[in-house]
């Protein structure tokens, strides 16, 4: 026991300033998001929902980043795969189920938007759209507000590798670079944009190196390692808060699932390639880490799976039973009430 503790002293998460509880919490969110997505895919196949886009394979990076930021204080502009991220900053599985069932109670859009278009003002989750990369200038705008009002929050936006080719990526990051604004942009490089592999999509060897165009650091990190992503984003946040400006983070992982439930990925990539990448999946790796450092056990893991299944079952039932918006609500909130 004494020995046990002394081992913990040197564990990586402790060195990074994460308590054992936090380290376990991170795992919980990663697993919760994974199970949520699996449930979403099942619901779609079962015809209970029309469509699902999952973040399977990207949970580690998303949770690592979320834990490096300040909930309900920083502003978050996630993209459609960020289920693990929004869970980690406070969205509930019940709220997400309401969203994928497109029900009136859904806090993201009251059933107006596709699932994955996150929004939750109380949680500082900023409403997003489908056209990719538009959130990058928005995040820069939040950061500009922080600078103008001397607030100590940062804005954090994510996007995909393909999306880094949009003009808004360039225009937004240059703006942030010129004014040294407190914004962190994390590209979740899952190596595909639907069917188009990185090599046919992005002309630069890495996305991180694009930071040289904007006078800011660009950091490439293993997106399957939540602790590494945590470290990198935490450092970026400190730079931002200290007035040293923006950071571009590239978290590298692999899109383990097809692009969406409408996509057949074997039309453009091999099963072998996908299987190889399952070997690198961050979730079992991180679970093993927790066990190795002695703060987690198979028993606890089984219990957690139980608990998550129960939570998701309840959330699913709630979302399924919840009421649809009233048809006439189509007409509300085009403009604010005078």
């Amino acid at each position, binding site marked *: 026991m004494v020995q046990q503790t002394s081992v913990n002293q040197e564990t990586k998460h402790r060195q990074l300033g994460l308590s054992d509880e936090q380290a376990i919490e991170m795992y919980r969110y990663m697993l919760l998001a994974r199970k949520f997505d699996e449930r979403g895919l099942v619901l779609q196949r079962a015809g209970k929902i029309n469509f699902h886009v999952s973040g399977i394979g990207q949970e580690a990076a998303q949770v690592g980043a979320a834990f490096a930021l300040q909930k309900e204080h920083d502003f978050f502009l996630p993209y459609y795969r960020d289920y693990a991220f929004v869970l980690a900053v406070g969205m509930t599985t019940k709220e997400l189920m309401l969203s994928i069932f497109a029900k009136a109670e859904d806090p993201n859009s009251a*059933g107006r938007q596709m699932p994955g278009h996150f929004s939750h003002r109380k949680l500082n989750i900023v409403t997003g*759209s489908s*056209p990719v990369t538009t959130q990058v200038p928005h995040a820069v705008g939040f950061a500009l507000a922080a600078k103008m009002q001397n607030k100590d929050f940062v804005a954090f936006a994510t996007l995909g590798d393909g999306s880094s080719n949009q003009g808004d990526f360039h225009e937004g990051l240059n703006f942030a670079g010129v004014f040294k604004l407190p914004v962190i942009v994390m590209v979740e490089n899952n190596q595909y944009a639907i069917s*188009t592999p990185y090599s046919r999509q992005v002309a630069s060897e890495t996305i991180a190196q694009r930071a040289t165009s904007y006078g800011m650091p660009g950091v490439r990190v293993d997106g399957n390692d939540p602790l590494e992503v945590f470290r990198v984003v935490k450092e970026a946040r400190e730079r931002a808060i200290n007035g040293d400006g923006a950071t571009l983070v590239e978290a590298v992982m692999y899109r383990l699932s097809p692009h969406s439930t409408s996509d057949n990925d074997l039309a453009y990539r091999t099963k072998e390639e996908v299987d190889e990448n399952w070997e690198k999946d961050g979730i079992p790796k991180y679970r093993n880490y927790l066990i190795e450092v002695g703060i987690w056990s198979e028993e606890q893991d089984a219990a957690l799976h139980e608990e998550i299944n129960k939570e998701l079952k309840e959330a699913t039932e709630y979302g399924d039973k919840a009421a649809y918006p009233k048809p006439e609500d189509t007409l509300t909130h085009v403009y604010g009430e005078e």
Partner: protein
Amino acid sequence: MATISFIDAIAAAMREEMQRDSSVFVMGEDVGLKGGVFTTTKGFQAEFGEWRAMDTPLAESAIAGVAIGAAMYGMRPIAEMQYADFMLPATNQIISEAAKIRYRSNNDWNCPIVVRAPFGGGIFGGLYHSQCPESIFFGTPGLKIVAPSTPYDAKGLLKAAIRDNDPVIYFEHKKCYRMVTGEVPDEDYIVPIGKADVKREGEDITVITYGLTVHFALQAAEELAKEGISAHILDLRTIQPLDEEAILEATRKTGKVLIIHEDNKTGGVGGEVAAIIAEKLLFELDAPIERLCGYDVPAMPISPSLEKFYMLNKDKVMEAMRKLALY
């Protein structure tokens, strides 16, 4: 004559034009290896190679802008926008560049591109996979804009668009892709840009529309015929330039006009059609010019209850037609 689907008509038009003319090629996101997110270009890479069925980076302004450059050289690019909603990053290239190249160079240069844009709702696409953005581009002289409703028109208009020496925006309704089938000649033909088409002859009321709603109007007319109401249905097919002659003739036919489109009412094509009639045939009208269009909200929501409320359908169209007939 073979009976094929709307989407197959689009694919056939592209394939035949690419076989006919080596300067024709298609470019866009996922159009190559995957064959398009709607599989419209499935098999094209096998037949025409990587360059002529080209997967582009995720960058619509570049897709349009590169197509424009290639077209000025003499190529015939078909630039696919994955969804019409995602044309907006390319607005500057389409409106400031493509539309003005011939005019600003006093006819020295021209820009024969086709921008294919799957548009329209009713597919649980939500705000950004359902829009009808034609009103953004409508009213930019220099552009031609078409929106077919049948496989015959889809194939003939796409061939005409590819052969046209000016930029053409080709709006293809996603809901028509597999829902609508029809006969298409085996031999080569085109449908001229700028010509509307009477889809049904009638005496009592005139319906002027385009795209998916043409079918709702035809279905409604079928049923109304049983009630003794005879509807004359004009499919605009081309929304820019509008076929003014055909609009006026269809109006004269009955003196009662209902304009229908899925795009929201305010600022839509229907306003221009009504204005043309109010300017040219005011005193031949026996009823106010009615418009049945999408609601004036930013875009249609995804929840089934909301989408159903937003979308037009046979019943809503029939009700509006009956109301006008009884006026």
